[in-house]
């Protein structure tokens, strides 16, 4: 008898989430292949409701002994919950799966990295190059005692290349990434762009403290989307701690910004058709030309808000992605609509400003209020040209003020990964009219 059938005999409701993961990863440090890694494992989470109380247990597979007993024992101490497990069967479509990606071997990944290494060595002899390349595939399975039995496959590749700047005492460099559901394809343009960025890092250049224009790259769009994730979370809205709690229908960001939640978007590297509670993902606009249209909910916060779940439950925290992470409402695909200007024209149009390629410390900020105070890495721009890399530059403000005045949004977009202190989706370059910089 399978675990859900067995659970039906002793608890009111049950939900079993299982994930099987298989990955191959290689790493080049300083140009030399120093690691080949494989992972092939699975994990499952059982949640039960008994007498209206919630309990959970976790293991490596549903056949592990004691799962139901542990979950039932935990439920005995739980307070009453306000929700039941998913009842409507989603239609799994595996939107993020490519069988060619799932079949990639370590040798295939070595070939990709060797090509990059050789191209970098040709253009910049003596440059150090660090690379990671990964192919992951797997299967997510969600069953509930209420009739849901959903299963879908996914695949993903990632290539990250970093060419450290030559200055002593630096741990930064030119960096570029490719994240995709498909096998990695390197283009000349991509390599040229990486090498151009390295050439920008020949020397440091400090902007003056004060308010200056800033271009956020797609990778640093998490400055906006992570804070929005906290504020749009149904749970924070219900408890009255979100800055957006009573703002539906109001203009909260620049009218140039439209942001959709779309976990099934083509090209989205974490595409999926159902969430981690078995609810079908529902593409919709959350920020329409700067106006707030709705929130992100899971089963629990949906009940608190008096509406059906939007299918945004995710088993992860800001830093971890463990099976025991409690499902909470989150972006599954934050898709920021593009503008009409090329990112190079954004740079060319700035008298003095910065191009932000990496931020650190965002998690320490008061995200529920939209405040941010982060270390900005990237480049200093003067008279439309990059003049050096940033050092000791802190950028601070509030997204609900600084993202009201957007000069332009790029026509190009890149995928963003579901990883610590970041949100999965698709983002353009965003040029803020000005942001507060403090330069040490």
């Amino acid at each position, binding site marked *: 008898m399978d675990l859900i059938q067995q659970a039906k005999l002793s608890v009111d409701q049950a939900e079993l989430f299982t994930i099987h993961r298989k*990955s191959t*990863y*290689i790493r080049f*440090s*300083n*140009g*030399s*292949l*120093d*690691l080949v*890694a*494989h*992972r*092939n*494992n*699975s994990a499952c989470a059982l949640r039960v409701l008994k007498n209206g*109380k*919630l*309990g959970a*247990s*976790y*293991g*490596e*597979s549903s056949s*592990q002994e004691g799962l139901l007993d*542990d979950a039932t024992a935990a*439920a005995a*101490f*739980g307070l009453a*919950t306000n929700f039941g497990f998913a009842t409507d069967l989603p239609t799994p479509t595996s939107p993020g799966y490519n069988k060619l990606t799932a079949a990639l071997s*370590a040798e295939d990944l070595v070939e990709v990295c060797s090509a990059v290494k050789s191209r970098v060595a040709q253009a910049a002899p003596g440059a150090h190059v660090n690379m990671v390349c990964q192919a992951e595939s797997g299967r997510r399975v969600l069953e509930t005692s209420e009739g849901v039995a959903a299963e879908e496959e996914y695949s993903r590749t990632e290539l990250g290349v970093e060419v450290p700047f030559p200055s002593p*005492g630096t*741990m*930064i460099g030119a960096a570029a990434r490719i994240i995709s559901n498909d096998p990695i394809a390197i283009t000349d343009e991509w390599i040229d762009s990486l090498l151009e960025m390295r050439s920008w890092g020949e020397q440091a250049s400090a902007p003056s*403290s004060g*308010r200056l224009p800033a271009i956020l790259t797609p990778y640093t769009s998490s400055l906006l989307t992570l804070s929005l994730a906290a504020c749009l979370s149904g749970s924070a809205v219900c*408890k009255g*701690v979100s800055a957006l709690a009573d703002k539906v229908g109001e203009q909260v960001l620049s009218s140039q910004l439209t942001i959709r939640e779309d976990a099934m978007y083509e090209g989205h590297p974490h595409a999926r058709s159902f969430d981690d509670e078995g609810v079908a993902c529902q593409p919709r606009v959350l920020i329409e030309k700067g106006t707030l249209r709705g929130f992100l909910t899971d089963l629990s916060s949906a009940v608190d808000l008096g509406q059906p779940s939007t299918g945004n439950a995710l088993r992860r925290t800001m*830093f*971890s992605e*463990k099976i*025991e992470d*409690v499902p909470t409402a989150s972006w599954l695909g934050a898709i920021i609509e593009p503008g009409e200007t090329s990112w190079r024209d954004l740079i060319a149009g700035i008298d003095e400003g910065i191009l932000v390629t990496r931020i*650190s*410390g965002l*998690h320490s*900020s*008061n995200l*529920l209020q939209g405040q941010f*105070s*982060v*270390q900005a890495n990237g480049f200093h721009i003067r008279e439309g040209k990059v003049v050096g890399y940033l*050092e000791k530059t*802190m*950028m*601070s403000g509030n997204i609900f003020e600084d993202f009201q005045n957007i000069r332009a949004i790029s026509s190009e977009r890149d995928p963003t990964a579901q*990883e*610590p202190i970041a949100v999965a989706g698709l983002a353009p370059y965003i040029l803020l009219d000005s942001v507060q910089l*403090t330069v*040490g």
Partner: protein
Amino acid sequence: MKDKLRAALLNLDVDYADIRFDDERKTNITLSGKDVEQMATFSPRGGHVRAYVNGGKAIASFSRIEDARDVAEQTAKAARIAAAHCTEPIGLADAPVIQKDFPVVSGNDPRGISLAEKHRLLAHYSEIALSVPEVLMTQFMYSDSFSHRTFVSTEGTAVGYDHLISHILGVIVGRRGDAVRRGFFAVGGSGDYGRLLDREELLRQSLNELDELLGAQPVKAGIFPVVLDPYGAGIFIHEAFGHTSEADHALQYPMIREVLARGNEIASPILNVFDDPTIPDRGGSYPIDDEGVVSRRTPLITDGRVSGRLHSRETAAALNEPITGNCRASDAGFGPLIRMSNTVIEPGPHSLDEMIASIDDGFYVAGGAGGQGGVDFTFGARWARRIRNGKLEEMVSDANLSGNLFTTLKGISMVGDSQLMFEYCDCGKGSFDGVQMTTRICAGAPHIKIDAVTVGGVS
């Protein structure tokens, strides 16, 4: 278990291989307000293999012990692929063969406490916080973990060792008008359940700080002298210097290797820093690491000069430096990485009053709202207080600090005379299978004064 692991490695065609299997028992309880968000006791298991062939290295993780032999053979094969493309062969520094067990000993073992009692304790702390009218949201998390690990290598090392840790972390969100601020409560960080009991006074102190913070104005951005409290100083030394001292970074970033060469003067001469997993009963305490190296104290900065860095056997061989026993995995199925243990700034000669009195225009900063590390570091303050003309004045909110490691280390002009060890730390470090988060880590520090730090805030 040792026999099963030996069988997995038997006659494997490698220069070296090891295998580790973790059998863990965890309890997590999360109260969101009065509601139980999570109540779970569970048993994650998993294993990890490393194989080295002709200078190439491969690793693999797996879930079921029955798969250990197949995984070991595949990993040996993958190491050959690595060897074919490896231009800098990987070796391992010598380490003594250990055949011994290291069982955990706790006077007040959380495994002996019922789930009901743990829940009751958490609910008690949560109720105290919720009794404050302006507190809108609380999240109190109890966690304990007992991990039994078995490690076997082809060199003959065969050890069993345990980790036991319990802690409570509370996040308290209050609102007054439009101001929403957070308070924190963290206790535990060892295998002693007793450390979690009778901590109401610390919680009330956090609630008083939150009350004052709700009336505080956001900090104005600028560059100021600051006094960091022991939490702030501990986070600084962990995030900025500790991570940079992990020798895998030195291999990836040759420019760091040069700056952090032994004997280089990198800090003010009053600064002394070490990493020591042998300090008893702290989050980062352990008898042996996850590649079978017995733990030891490692000096990192002595009188302002670089005196060591943290190693795995691989990095010790590559840099021709002594092994330190800092190669650890956070959880079942993860491979070991170089991690700090208990990283500590030694006390110095100055009183807190002297430090405050020495500042005309600056801040006293209470750290503890997270940070991110490296040469360019940043961390968030729980709260900060203005210092004017040598006196502590009003509290300010939303202070984040950032700076460059090397200029900041040289800017440390005073070191306090009493030290505090953290009860709760967590730390993430990237690995091939995601970020390894661990709470088995600790920092300790006295107050320190830094002459110039960038404080992020409003215009």
